[in-house]
């Protein structure tokens, strides 16, 4: 019972953080700010609505994975697979946000502004992307270590 409650609560955390809060904040925006969202899309090509939709999907994926992780035993291969998948999905989400919708930019977001003769803005967040990679790598290593030792300590 305690395990199920923990699994549900952790899944709820991801749903609230990635799926409900971004959609709710866009929905609650005053009309004048909503027009800025459209302007950003028209002039800078940053589709905030699309980013929120991706966050919603990622939130649901992370919630499912988190639920599955908490419902499985640490020594099961399922638990390890789900833990590694969670890291990969979380890493994709952070690269997606750092690249302002383009995860392949690896933290170097280039925004072409449609204004007069044309302008370009470049947001260099590669250091943050590198830290993200390090966090993902260490978290994955931790999952593997936990899986390895849980298998050894597994009750016969």
């Amino acid at each position, binding site marked *: 019972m305690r395990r199920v409650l923990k699994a549900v609560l952790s899944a709820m955390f991801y749903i609230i953080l990635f799926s409900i809060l971004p959609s709710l904040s866009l929905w609650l925006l005053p009309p004048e700010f909503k027009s800025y969202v459209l302007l950003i899309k028209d002039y800078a090509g940053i589709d905030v609505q699309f980013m929120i939709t991706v966050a919603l999907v990622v939130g649901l994926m992370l919630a499912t994975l988190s639920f599955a992780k908490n419902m499985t035993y640490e020594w099961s291969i399922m638990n390890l697979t789900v833990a590694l998948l969670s890291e990969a999905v979380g890493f994709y989400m952070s690269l997606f946000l750092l690249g302002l919708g383009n995860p392949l930019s690896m933290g170097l977001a280039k925004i072409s*502004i449609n*204004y*007069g*003769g*044309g*302008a*370009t*803005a*470049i*947001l*260099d*967040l*590669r*250091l*943050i992307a590198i*830290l*993200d990679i*390090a*966090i993902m790598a*260490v*978290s994955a*290593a*931790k999952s593997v*270590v*936990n899986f390895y*030792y*849980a298998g*050894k*300590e597994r009750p016969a």
Partner: protein
Amino acid sequence: MKRKASKILSATIIVLYVSLLIVSSTSLFSISSTLVGSLERVEDVRFDSTTNPLTGVVDLAVRVPIRNRGIIEVNVSVAVKLVSADGTVVAEGSDSRRIGPGETEELLVVATFLRGTVDSADLSFECRAFFDLVGLSFSMRVETPTEGYPSP
């Protein structure tokens, strides 16, 4: 053994998360504050030009005051590239300064060119923070008036 290895990895993850938080918050706050602080004083940008009536040589000096309202040092650079109608770079100038938190510095860009040869100007502005590892840059092309150099 498991506990020790897991604890070391957990501590590493916490350290990395704290580093991520410090890097992103201090650098992004300092860059955006410097940008906003500079845009608020955009009317203080001065264009001084002197033209030699005999040779037609124009000396253009652009003074850009930058104020760092952030919490860490930023490296700000401004560059101007004057381009002729056929795409040749006629003149270029740039300046960069390291500005500490709360300080104001003036960047000076000087360019010398022949009157009537400039068709457009490529302007770029870059602001970097956290040992120049995080940054934001803008570049744009503006058409110059018939006088041959950017108007104030």
